[in-house]
Structure formats: C-alpha cells, structure tokens
C-alpha cells in the first residue's frame, strides 16, 4: 500500500534498490545531491545532474522531461554519504514556466524495482520557487527512510546548492543549466499538428475543448520553437498585402486556392493478409508537396514508435530473465541435480521467445517503412530530396519557396539503412551550427579533417538553400576572417551565387556584420511601425544567410555582440546564421556565448547521434546531406542558380 506523505512526514524504506518517479506535466530538471552525516554536500562530485548524470549508486536523466525515473541503489553510495536529496528545478533560459507556481504540482514517488509504490508525495503550495528539494532519503540506525521535504527556493538551483553547504554552488548551477539547455537545443522541432489521416488509423480527433491547467499535453521533447508559425515574409514587411485598387484581399496569404485539393493518391486495395502497397504522397495536404511533407513526418513518428515498442519489450524480457535467474540462485532446491540448470535454461528460453516476437513485429514494421521510403524518396521534390536523387539533374530554379528543406538524414541503430529525411520548415526558424569540434562526436576523423568536412557540409547546406529559393529571394554572405575556407567556399564563389567575395580580416567582419545588423534594425522598425513601404528602395528584401567560418577569429567584442543580436533578432526578419565553428575555439568568452549556441540547431559534419525525436525522445543518428563522392551535382545546381541570378530568369 502506498504511503501518501505530507510535507515533513517520513516513511521507512524496505530495501536499498529503488526508483524515484517524478511527473510534473512540463519538462523539468531532476537531480540529486549526497550529504554526509553533518548534512553537507562534500563537493561537486556529490551532485548528480544532467551534465554529470551518474554517481555511484545513483543515476538521473540527462535532460529536462515531464517524467523522470531516477535509479537509486542506497547500498552502493560513496563512503560517508548518509543522505540523498532529490531535487527538481525548472529549466532556465528557455521559453516555459519560470516558477513552480505556474505549473501543476509535481508528483514524486519512491517505488521498488518492480514498480510497486512505497511512498508518494505531491508537492503543493509552491509559488515563486524555481527549484525545490522534493524528497530526502536518509539513514537512521542502518535503515533507510524517506522524508517528504518540499523546500522550495526562489533563487533557483544556486540558492539550493548553497543552502546544502556547497561552496561552488553558483558555478555548479550554471553548469547544470547549461547542460539542460544543451539537451533542449538537441531536440528536433515538433512537426505541425498532423490532421487526422485515414491512412494512419491511429490518428485521433484533436478538436476537444481548450485544455485547463491540469490538462497540459505532453510537451514534445521541450522544444520551444514550434514550426507552425512561419516568420513574416520580408517581401511584404509583415503587413497584409493589399491589391492596388484599395480593396481588401481576403485570400489566405499562404493558400493559393480555396478549391478542395485534389484527392491524394490512394493505395490499391491490399490482398487479404498483406499490408497495403505504399504510395508516395499517401497523406493529407493541400498540395503534393504538403502531402509528401506530412508523409515523411508520419514515417518519422512511426519509426520512433515502433522502435519504442521493440525496446520496451526487450527491456522487459531482460529484467524478467534477471529476476528469474536471481530466484533460481537464491532457491536452495536448485542446487540439487539439474533442477537449477533446467530453470535457468527455461528463463533464457522465455527471454529468447519474447525478444524473437518483438523482433518479428519490429521487422514487419521496418519492412513496411522501408517499402514506403523506397517509393517516397524518388517522388520528393529537390528541396526534400537527397543529393543522389535524379530530380537534382533536372533541377530548375523554382518560382516559389518550398515549405521545407532537407537538413539531412536520421536513422536508428535498429535499422541503419532506413533513412528518414529530416525536413525543417522554411523560412528557417533557427540558425544552424555546424559543429567542427571534436567534442560530442566519437568520430575518428582528426581535427583538420573535421573542419574541412564541416565546411563542405556548410557549402552543401548553403547550396541547397540557394537552390530552394526563387532567384534573388535568398542572399548568402560569407565571413571567412582568416581565409582558411577559400578552397571549400570555391564552388559558391565560382558559381557567382554569393552577395560578394567572402569577407576577410577584422575589417571585413565588422563591415558585413554592420550591414546585416542595420538591415535587421530597419526591417524591425518598419514592421513595428507598420510602414513597410518606407524602407529604402535599394534594400534587398530577400532572405539573408550569413555563413561564419573560423569564429571567433577576427571578431572583437563589438562584433560578437552584433553576432548575438543577429542570432536572436534575425530569424524573425529573414536574416539567418550558419556558424561553422568549434565551441572550444570560443571558450575564452565563457558562458557569454551560451545563448548563441543554444539559439542554433546543432548539426554535425559526420554521423552523430545527438538529435531527439519529439514523441519518445530516442537518440537519432544524424547524417549530413552530402553529394555522392565524385558527383558534379552541386556545381551543376549552383551554376543554374548563378545563371538565374545574373539573368533574373529561370
């Protein structure tokens, strides 16, 4: 029977191996500190948090989440640890609640390994606090007990850690917030809400009354950026376009027609007992492009969920086998004759059976998705297509901006050859950071090679963006202060698709940044003042991309400030940032630049598993979209773009 604790109440714990479950409805940070017998934290090594999730006998989540499970083995704690404090805190520096008063009361429970609840505690009466000690597990005469604490701190983690006697409290709080923000920045933006879709029976009706305070839906991997709100089009300065005769135009700005869309292609009826043959564009949408976009996001979700089912089944099979083997070990009868061996063999067979069944279900789903990918990939338009796709050979400069762009491929270890296109909405809502550093990747490539790969993938991303926009609607500026990227940027320079030659030296950096900063200021003022037509006639109204190589080389403090300003304010007025950088190079700036990195979507020049899906939070391996080796497709496409820019035609 669960003991429902009230503040201050304690309860004995039956064992030392426990799990602590937290649910809060919103993404929060969970951590734990250890105290000695004088209730002091002896140092930062006694704190488990997302940046350092494992201590002896203790493990916490690596990222903020609405639900947590903390594993605790009280018998394995370091010597001298007499108490475990379970902490909760709200993530700092991201959109979201800043006090516990504005979220539902967090619920914490101590459970055994089999999930039976021992004690639970709902932390009520919180208001201005942003961090709270939820529970403490403490030792009394060689037995462990749990106490409901509920002590909140309006000053956040720093105050809380200082209160526990940790001298480096403030620094550690910064480290923790930083690790959490990195976790949040890793997640892929959630897709726009997918309308109910006949082809995917599991989609459910969404049209229910507005949710109340206790009905917050699960936050998708805590990404504050929802791609459903496109940035205002700089072309019209954000003001509604009016036809020349002064009458009001009632047409939807982004919907060309009010006639019902042509019906999506439907799969031919399946033979009994066979899954339906997949068809490209088999999803809802107003155009084939939108249907393909929805289909790709549907495949992404399906793969995430089928992998979740498989992993959950395998985990369960393993924990059941372990329990059964433990039972055999502790049963004295198993020492007689072959009884023990037979029981062990039976446990292993049960494990094998379940894993086989789970694998069969997974393989069935993977085969279906692979078949779908096979028909979808060739049907994708250039902006969604891989560089190896034949559509790039027939490439023509488009007249309209596509709804999304392929930033790379995603796959899971269960089936590495099944690639899901990673599509992000255009115009970009976040800048890109192509990480040329070694931190975070386990790639064997050496540092110089990584830098070159990062530059090459930056050029491939920039080329794709240029190719996706109509002529003149997208301008690319390059800052290459030390000139180390000359050979990598050559395809862009040679094709004449850049606004000017790459800026070099401190003067070039200052000049480029000043021009773009002024542009952001002007457009912002015009939009806020509602006087879009007052902009100077020579102002380029297209979207701008600034590619920065070798940061912070050539940047003085003023230039760094301007860059941060561009990262924050630019996306809303069509000025985007692409940093090709190693975070270590800029370490002298310390935490000053953290918001900059956080504002950008980090991608890598080599395959790396750092992206999370918005539904289950698996770690997906990201692969940059590179042209096949020896292929001329990039220069071919850039030549077309360059011609169109010069002649203004297609």
């Amino acid at each position, binding site marked *: *029977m*669960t003991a429902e604790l009230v503040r201050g109440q304690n309860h004995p714990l039956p064992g030392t191996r426990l799990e602590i479950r937290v*649910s809060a*409805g919103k993404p929060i940070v969970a951590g734990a500190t250890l105290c000695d017998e004088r209730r002091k934290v002896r140092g930062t090594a006694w704190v488990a948090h997302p940046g350092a999730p494992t201590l002896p006998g203790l493990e916490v989540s690596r990222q903020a989440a*609405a*639900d947590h499970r903390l594993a605790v083995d009280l018998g394995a704690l370091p010597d001298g640890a007499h108490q475990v404090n379970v902490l909760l805190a709200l993530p700092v520096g991201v959109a979201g609640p800043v006090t516990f008063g504005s979220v539902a009361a967090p*619920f914490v*429970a101590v459970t055994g390994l*089999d*999930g039976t*609840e021992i004690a*639970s505690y709902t932390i009520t009466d919180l208001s201005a606090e942003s961090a709270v000690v939820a529970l403490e597990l403490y030792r009394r005469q060689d037995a462990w007990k749990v106490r409901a604490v509920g002590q909140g701190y309006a000053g956040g983690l720093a105050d809380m850690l200082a209160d526990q006697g940790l001298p480096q409290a403030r620094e550690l709080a910064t480290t923790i917030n930083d690790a959490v923000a990195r976790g949040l920045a890793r997640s892929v933006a959630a897709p726009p809400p997918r309308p109910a879709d006949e082809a995917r*029976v*599991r*989609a*459910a*009706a*969404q049209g*229910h*009354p507005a*949710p*109340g305070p*206790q*009905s*917050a*839906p*699960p936050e998708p991997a805590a990404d504050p950026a929802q791609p459903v709100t496109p940035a205002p089009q700089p072309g019209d300065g954000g003001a509604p376009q009016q036809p020349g005769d002064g009458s009001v135009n009632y047409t939807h700005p982004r919907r060309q027609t009010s006639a019902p869309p042509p019906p999506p292609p439907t799969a031919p009826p399946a033979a009994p007992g066979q899954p339906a043959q997949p068809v490209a564009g088999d999803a809802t949408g107003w155009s084939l492009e939108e249907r393909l976009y929805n289909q790709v996001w549907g495949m992404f*979700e*399906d793969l995430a*969920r*089928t992998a*979740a*089912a*498989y992993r*959950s*089944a395998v985990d*369960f*099979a393993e924990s*059941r086998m372990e329990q059964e083997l433990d039972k055999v070990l502790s049963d004295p009868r198993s020492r007689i004759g072959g009884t023990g061996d037979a029981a062990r063999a039976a446990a292993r067979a049960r494990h094998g059976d*379940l894993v086989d*069944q*789970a694998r069969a*279900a997974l393989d069935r789903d993977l085969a279906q998705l692979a078949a779908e990918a096979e028909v979808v990939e060739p049907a994708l338009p250039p902006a969604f297509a891989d560089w190896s796709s034949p559509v790039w050979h027939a490439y023509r400069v488009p007249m309209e901006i596509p709804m999304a762009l392929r930033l790379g491929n995603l796959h899971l270890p269960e089936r590495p050859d099944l690639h899901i296109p990673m599509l992000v909405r255009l115009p970009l809502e976040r800048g890109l950071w192509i990480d040329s550093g070694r931190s975070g990747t386990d790639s064997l490539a050496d540092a110089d090679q990584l830098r070159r790969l990062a530059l090459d993938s930056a050029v491939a991303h920039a080329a794709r963006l240029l190719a996706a926009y109509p002529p003149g609607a997208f301008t690319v500026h390059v800052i290459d202060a030390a000139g180390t990227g000359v050979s990598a940027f050559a395809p862009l320079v040679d094709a004449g698709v850049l606004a000017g030659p790459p800026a070099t030296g401190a003067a070039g950096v200052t000049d480029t940044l000043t021009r773009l900063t002024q542009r952001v200021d002007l457009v912002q003022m015009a939009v806020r003042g509602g006087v879009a037509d007052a902009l100077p006639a020579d102002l380029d109204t297209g979207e701008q991309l600034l590619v920065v190589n070798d940061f912070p080389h050539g940047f003085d403090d003023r230039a760094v400030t301007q860059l941060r300003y561009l990262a924050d304010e630019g996306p809303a007025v069509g000025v985007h940032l692409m940093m090709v950088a190693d975070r270590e190079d800029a370490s002298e700036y310390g935490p000053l630049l953290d918001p900059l990195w956080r504002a950008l979507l980090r991608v890598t020049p080599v395959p790396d598993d750092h992206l999370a899906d918005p*539904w*289950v939070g698996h770690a997906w391996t990201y692969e940059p979209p590179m042209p096949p080796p020896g292929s001329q497709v990039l220069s071919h496409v850039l030549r077309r773009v360059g011609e169109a820019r010069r002649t203004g035609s297609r």
Partner: protein
Amino acid sequence: MTVNMTKGQAISLQKNDGGALTSVRMGLGWQAAPRRGLFGTRTREVDLDASAVLFADKQPVDVVFFRHLVSDDGSVRHTGDNLVGGVGQGGDDEAILVDLQRVPVHIDQIVFTVNSFTGQTFQEVQNAFCRLVDETNGQELSRFTLDGGGQYTAQIMAKVHRAGAGWQMTALGNPANGRTFQDLMPAILPHL
C-alpha cells in the same frame, strides 16, 4: 447488439464472423448533475478522466492519460481531455483508441479506469457511461452505466487482455477512490 455487462463478465473480442478485432475504443460520457441553490439551474462542473494502463506481466509499462496522450509505442491514443462533459449529450466525451494489432508483444493486459478529477462521487454525475466500441465499424460491444453509482470517485472499468492469439475483454466495474490513475494502482493490481 449491445451487451450490458455485469461485473466480472468476460467477453471474447472475436467478431461474430470469427475475425479478430483490430481496433477498439473505450468511450466515456457524462453530464454534470444539477445542483439546488440560489440559482437553481446552476450546475457544478464535473471532470471525469479516462486512463489506460498497459501492463506486462503485472508490471505497469506505460500509461495513457490526459498528460500522456499517446503510449510511446503509438498503439494506445487518448483523444484529449474533456473538463466539463456533456458535450455530445450522449456521445463520448473522452475516448481512448487501442490498435490491438500494434500493441507491443510484451504487453498482455490493458486496464481502463475512470476517475473523477474534480472529486465528485458518481452519485453527483448524470448520464455517465463507459462503453467499448469496435472502432472498425462503430458497433458497441459493451456498455456500463456509471451514474447513481454511490460514494466513490473512481472505477476500474474493464481490462483487455491477451487470450490465445486474440484478445478478450473482462468487465471489472470495480469502485475505487482516487483522483488520477496513480491513486488506483493498488486497487488495479488484484485484478491482473
């Protein structure tokens, strides 16, 4: 044909023609009971919540409720929280859809529960029902009436469990008390 189920009754989820069910929906509907007072017609808002708990060998593995609307594997989906009821005047106000073919292999039981989040007992709720529907053709398989139920705030409605190659449903109709499914866990465990 609707079966008005009684407690403990089990029905096999085989279709009449012998085919197995592939997709079922647990629907929940209710209206707030009128209250006497200065303004006689004023009603008190009642918020009932439907939840589904997925068990593997008596261990809870996943749960679908108003804060986690889709099970991680995607097989169980809640259509969204309804805070006031009575919208459809007899239709489902909350529903949980289960795609039986996609339920992971280790999940052997799914227990459906109803809780009164606002704390009213089922005596104060009008026209409350819970039903199980074959989602492929809209046919109602079974129905429970909840109102006039007595002094309790929750009910463990039914469980859907594997039987051989297919699934079977057992009506439980067990009254309990609690605000969310977490409170009901001790009451659910004996029914597994």
